[in-house]
């Protein structure tokens, strides 16, 4: 089983009204995903496996399993490529065919990447050694 988690060493995120806002703190890029993408990110924050996420999509949305699986795999690849998530464990991704019981309309999840701030951050890069103020003793 493969478990997906936010890459907390680099990423801060929040899901608001179903839309995920994701910040990469190391390079200034930020991202948004609405609809199914927001649903998937919420599942990632709960550290679900890719199989469980696919089950959740099929239970909620009106979508054929092959399309949901392909879309999920594509999104996971994009999130991994930009180091927004980490994947633990191994095994085949999204095997089997979960029952299709969902009724909400489905649109393929899309990771919108914004990079306007990256140029600024390149001039003012993070300083990894700095954390909260040390104790006074």
């Amino acid at each position: 089983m493969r478990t997906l988690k936010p890459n907390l060493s680099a990423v801060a995120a929040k899901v608001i009204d179903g839309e995920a806002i994701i910040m990469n703190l190391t390079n200034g890029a930020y991202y948004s995903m609405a609809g199914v993408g927001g649903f998937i990110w919420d599942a990632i924050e709960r550290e679900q496996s890719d199989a469980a996420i696919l089950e959740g999509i099929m239970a909620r949305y009106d979508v054929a399993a092959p399309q949901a699986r392909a879309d999920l795999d594509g999104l996971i690849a994009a999130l991994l490529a930009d180091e927004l998530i980490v994947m633990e464990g191994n095994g085949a991704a999204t095997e089997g065919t979960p029952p299709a019981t969902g009724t909400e309309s489905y649109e393929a999840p899309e990771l919108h990447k914004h990079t306007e701030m990256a140029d600024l951050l390149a001039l003012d890069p993070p300083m990894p050694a700095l954390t909260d103020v040390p104790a006074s003793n």
Partner: protein
Amino acid sequence: MGAPAVSAGAPTLDVAADFDSMLAAAERAATLHPGKVRVSHYLIADRLVTVRLIGDALGSRLTRAISHLRVTDLDREPDLRIDMWDGCETGVTAPGCAPRGEEGSAGRTDVSPGGRFVLFEQARTRSVLDRVEKRIAGWVVAASQLSQYELGRPWHSELLLWQHDCGLQPLHAGFIERDGIGVLLAGPGGSGKSTTSLSCMQEGWSYLADDYVSVERQDKRVIGYGAYNSAHLDPTHLRRFPRLVPGAIHGRLAREDKSLVLASDLRNVRLAGKAELRLIAFPRVVDRPESRWYPASKAEALLRIAPSSLLLLPYVQLGHSAFKTMSEVVMELPTCWLDVGRDLAQLPAAVADMVAEVVKP
């Protein structure tokens, strides 16, 4: 003009020893030139900051941007102490305190193991913040060589980190207030923050900040603080505010392509350092005469305020708590788009209308 470029250089220096030697040098300068010592006190984010400047020119130039926050000596220990000396005027130096590179060239930061001492180094200035003792020791090669940025936002990086350590969250935003209602003006550079804050200032609003605000929660309220009464305007922008033109300080260096305006130099304006935050507006310049407002979704709001605000504290580990705080503030307060039209005379009325419609009594 943005913040000076800073690169996280290799930790080649003993930053803790740097702090000690710089503080000793400041003491030496004060002992040698007691007549050049100027001590003043400021209430920055409701915290008492005591500044000791050694050098006549330094004393008259460096604190203009925070002069509206000056207070008489309060009967309490300062929350932050700053000691800074002018190397040329006093003839005192310390290890590492020498001009480096061209004026305006990229600076450097360094941090001691454990993160207690942080060095901020620019071409003509150098300072170390002791985050435990809440103290800054700083040097400038000569007051006449202070950059426009250093005049408009003295100790900006140091104060950002100190305020973070005090539990405050820095935001990249302008800030105005009227009748006890603070309006945050957030968004990236060029979105209309300065235009809105200066236009409203000219119509009687209190001016708290142009580009940088810190916030903290007090019970159920969100309190915002501004530190600097400065604004940086490009020439085209400046011409739209004729009243500001005479006092504008133009850049010396090639990269200083904007003019610095100090609102404290203006007559009949209201300056403040603190207000309750009641509304977050996101200005954006539009190509039509009139200004309008309409609600912004919370996701839009977080996307608008978080990226550039996180750049204020370019330390990865601090970003998580900063993002969480910003998310909470965005969720709690009304959020609106503010289309900034060409006719600036209409803009304050649009802001007033937005406040009247959106902010609950």
